[in-house]
């Protein structure tokens, strides 16, 4: 039995990373830096406390898979379709240019031709993990520059997969050999993409509709879907080798496509909230383990060269991206932010380098691997700060960049809510409120976690968000902070307290409560009005009963409107409402 014991490497990694991570937050540093440093400190380079184990490696691998899955879940194809052409036009020249520069640097320094080729190939990519993590943390993943960066990263990812496939096949015999491998990978990526998109159109909607009401089930089935893609990508070689094809697909690519298929469903928002924490946990292990694989001597063999190349590459990458984005007519801010994010060398560079070391015979040695890793670590760390402070930086340099201003830039789509109404949970009370509120407000968005409700709301012509209000993601998408009026028909105190923490003084908030004590608590928390539904309900019913006891015909008249509504049996009956109740 493997003695993982919980006092083992995983434990040390988690605890150390947590300590350093908290310290980083405290000092206003990005957590990634904390995690990478943790790896350096507790790994063989520093104290030598831990070595990578099967469990840490698996968790790191899962971290990347979950990160890409999460990213996939966020990509609604409708929202990125118009970006596909510019992304292709940016990513191909970028990779050629940066690869050439990387090769050039390496040739000038004491590296052989072959080593220089590998170095060139390794430094082309920007770090998916760093960029996406930072964009997520800053809430910029779906901004225009975020989408561009993500698109370019994915294009690079495809190339990494191809390079890895070529390296795995050993020293290529010639151009034809490379071309065949390339062809197979392209075909596989296409097939997987088509399968994912077809599934998202024909299979998943009905499948997920059945289970969406049950959070646990939704989560587990989504994870199962992710692992299906992970398993197929991971084992593609095993599946295809009987028919004589050597194939390779990256787990990350599979994970992304699995997420992409789910993103097209209305339930994706809720899943983001569920998948995010797992991603955080595993990605943490990933960043820590980046530095775990090295001995200090290998890592530092070429440290001076690494510093020079790191600085050079960051400048070159920024300039290349800036020029290409500008060429694609993005506005100055987008161009700047999009470029500043991509200046680092990716963890995939390390993966490529590792493959080159493990290739038979090896293309490069341990020291060259250490060099590439060091460049990646340094550029990643520095770039994190550039991303963290990207807007401040832009404000500083904007005056000097005016000659790059576009006269007619590509416009980002603006879909954010402002001064609108948010209704949480759909029920009869909420329905009545909606009818009254729609006379005053144009934008109304309803949040509910029930498939039938959401469909009824959409049929009635309101915006509906499927999801649990507990998740910050849902609150953000509904723009709760900027709402003018919020009506919560949830009677869970916890939900309403979360709501009241999020809204400002300016927002009028109506909430529901079950008991007087809860109501008092919610008024204290700042609610404008607390609907004590059970009490209001029974008060009204007793009025009816009074008529019943006194005069049956009055009773029949009073309940007539109610009865019409009840008979309709619809969630969103198209019936004119009663004109208020009797005043008390």
């Amino acid at each position, binding site marked *: 039995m493997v003695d993982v014991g919980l006092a083992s490497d995983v434990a040390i990694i988690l605890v150390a*990373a947590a300590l350093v991570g908290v310290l980083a937050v405290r000092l206003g540093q990005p957590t990634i830096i904390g995690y990478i440093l943790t790896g350096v400190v507790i790994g063989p380079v520093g104290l030598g406390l831990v070595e990578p184990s099967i469990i840490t490696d698996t968790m790191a691998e899962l971290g990347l898979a979950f990160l890409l899955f999460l990213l996939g879940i966020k990509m609604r194809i409708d929202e990125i379709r118009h970006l596909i052409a510019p992304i292709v036009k940016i990513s191909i020249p970028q990779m050629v240019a940066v690869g050439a520069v990387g090769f050039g640097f390496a040739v000038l320094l004491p590296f052989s031709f072959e080593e220089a080729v590998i170095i060139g190939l390794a430094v082309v990519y920007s770090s998916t993990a760093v960029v996406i993590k930072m964009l997520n*943390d800053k809430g910029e993943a779906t901004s225009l520059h975020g989408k561009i960066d993500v698109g370019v990263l994915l294009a690079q990812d495809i190339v990494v997969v191809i390079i890895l496939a070529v390296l795995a096949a050993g020293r290529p015999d010639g151009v034809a050999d490379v071309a065949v491998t390339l062809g197979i990978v392209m075909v596989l990526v296409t097939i997987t993409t088509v399968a994912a998109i077809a599934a998202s159109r024909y299979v998943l909607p009905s*499948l997920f509709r059945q289970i969406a009401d049950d959070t646990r089930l939704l989560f587990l089935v989504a994870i199962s879907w992710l692992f299906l893609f992970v398993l197929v990508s991971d084992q593609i070689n095993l599946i295809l080798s009987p028919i004589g094809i050597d194939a390779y697909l990256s787990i990350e690519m599979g994970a992304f496509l699995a997420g992409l298929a789910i993103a097209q469903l209305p339930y994706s928002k809720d899943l983001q909230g569920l998948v995010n924490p797992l991603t955080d946990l595993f990605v943490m292990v990933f960043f820590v383990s980046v530095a775990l694989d090295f001995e200090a001597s290998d890592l530092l063999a070429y440290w001076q060269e690494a510093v020079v190349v790191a600085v050079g590459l960051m400048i070159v990458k920024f300039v290349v991206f800036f020029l290409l984005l500008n060429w694609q007519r993005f506005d100055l801010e987008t161009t700047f932010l999009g470029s500043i994010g991509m200046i680092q060398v990716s963890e995939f560079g390390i993966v490529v380098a590792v493959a080159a070391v493990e290739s038979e015979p090896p293309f490069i040695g341990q020291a060259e691997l250490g060099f590439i890793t060091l460049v990646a670590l340094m550029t990643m760390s520095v770039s994190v700060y550039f991303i963290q402070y990207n807007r401040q930086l832009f404000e500083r340099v904007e005056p000097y960049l005016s000659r790059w201003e576009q006269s007619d830039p590509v416009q980002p789509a603006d879909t954010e809510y402002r001064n609108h109404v948010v209704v949480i949970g759909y029920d009869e009370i909420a329905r009545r409120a909606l009818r009254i509120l729609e006379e005053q407000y144009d934008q109304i968005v309803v949040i509910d976690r029930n498939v039938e409700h959401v469909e009824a709301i959409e049929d009635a012509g309101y915006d509906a968000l499927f999801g649990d209000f507990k998740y910050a993601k849902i609150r953000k998408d509904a723009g709760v902070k900027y709402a003018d009026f919020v009506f919560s028909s949830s009677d869970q105190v916890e939900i309403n307290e979360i709501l009241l923490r999020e809204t400002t003084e300016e927002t009028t908030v109506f909430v529901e409560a079950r008991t007087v004590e809860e109501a008092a608590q919610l008024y204290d928390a700042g609610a404008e009005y607390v609907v004590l539904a059970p009490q209001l*309900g029974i008060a009204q019913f007793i009025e009816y009963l009074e008529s019943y006891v006194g005069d049956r015909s009055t009773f029949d008249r009073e309940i007539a409107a109610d009865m019409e509504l009840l008979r309709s049996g619809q969630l969103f009956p198209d019936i004119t409402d009663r004109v208020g109740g009797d005043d008390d």
Partner: protein
Amino acid sequence: MTDVALLTAMAILFVVAGPVLLIAKGLRLSIIPSLILAGLFVGQLGLIDGALMLELARLGIAFLVFTFSVQIHTEEVRTVVSNTEVVAIVQAFVLGVLGILFALVVGIVLESGVVPGVGLEEPVTVEQALFVGIAAALSSVIVGTALFAKPQSDIVHDYLSSEIDSVSDFLAVFVLLVVSAGTFALDPIATQFGYGVMLLGAAIVINRYLFGIMERLASGSDEAMLISIVALLIVFLAAADFLDTSIVVGAFAAGLAVRDNPVEYSEVFNGLNSIQEFFVAIFFATVGALVTLPSPLAVTADPSATLGPFVPVATIALGLVVLTVVIKPIVIGVLLVYNGYDRRSATVTGLTLDHVGAFSVIVAIEALILGLLIEPVFEGIILAAAVSMILSNLTHTYDEEIYGLLVDRGWLGQPYHDVDDWNSVPEDMSDHVVIVGYGRHGRRLVEFCEEVDQPYVVIENNPQALPDLRANCGAYVFADAIEPETADASNLEAARLVISTADSKPLTEHFLSFSDTVDVIVRTRELPMAADLIERGATYVIVPDLLAADQLADSLGALLNGEYDPDELRAESMSELNPERAPPRFSTAESTSHTGEPNR
């Protein structure tokens, strides 16, 4: 760059679990047995490195126990034991003893070699039997929260089962603590127990003093808070490991150390929750994968040699299933009836608790890891858990039908009344209002009837409401509303109106069958249900939200028309909360509802 064997194993588990879960959803089975089944399938493929998966699975246990104990507020633990809790404890004791006896008998039979070719390498000792007893006794489904949040349900059997479940949870955690801390062979039990207490002490110190510092350090970053809490858990697990105590003790202590603040750290707690779900899924699937079934091919080739080792496993599993699915509901039913509950609530409650609990699975696996439990007994318990959980799903779905069948056969005898004054309705009562349920709504209706001198009869089946019934109600029937004798006792046929305040399908159906002779008003929360109820003769359907909406519309309209500004509205509506200024009926409803509250 990595050895992805573990990743592959995990991937296979989840890939199989997905479709199984979907099918299970179609069959209305719950998640845990579905996961065990999925694991069972994968286990037979022989692809999983059990030892390695088990390590991840134990994180599942850790998180499970951890999130359970996070909800325990050390300041608020009750010391009063209610009637129902006594029922739960006695039930667990009886079933536990039966389970132990059963296992010992199986052990003796196997030992004696009565059945040729069937036997165990190791004898079934008292220790082994103890675990079978635990599996039979505990039916928890990890509800936990029910003990702290008041039950929300109107329906007696719903709150009964959730209360018994949460007692079961606590017993399970206690057993886990004792089992894992106390039974290590080398150390004296006292030392181990001492370590456990030390950890708990440390946890409470952290909760009171250090957690605040942690919160300040994380300075509002959800990610930092989440990883700190995970790290805290890991530290406790490592400490438990270091002290040679079970990780369950560590996880439990860690949970106590964390302050439950779901509002301020909603994202953090959501996060813990989804991390937990992930590892717990791995846990149950792995548990399933650890069970080896005889392969059909081998059985046909050489039946006796293949089935031989499996017979003890199957016997234990079968025995446990019989104990939990048949004997347990009977024991619970008898105990509840003895405590004054009606036979329907008692039966239905028994039918929701008739399975081996999830915590028992944890106890079994911890015992296996610690070397206290031999493989065949372990496999028997796991199989019994999966089978009984699935059966329990079925009996829960068809509980009313099963109850009907039992009554028709006469197996439940006559309705039993342990109090003489179960019925205080005058013989000649007529033209009265029958109020079903003496919860918040029922009480308000009673007050109203008294105000307007309308004769009424209350029907209630919760023994905890009995003192109030006696004190406050002129006429009541303390019995299950559905029993024919209840209708007779309340002179239902002569009544003017029946108002059912319980949102329960069988009750609603029962009263609608009288709608030809009397006016019937029923209650439902689901608006779309109402149309059907009216169709079937309801005079009116109480949909609380619909009624409340009227009253709300006024306030909202006034605000939007500018008759009020938000501050005025707030001030005015807050003042209405003040009992002195509120309408009198309103406040009395509140003040009388503090006793026997479960029926609200």
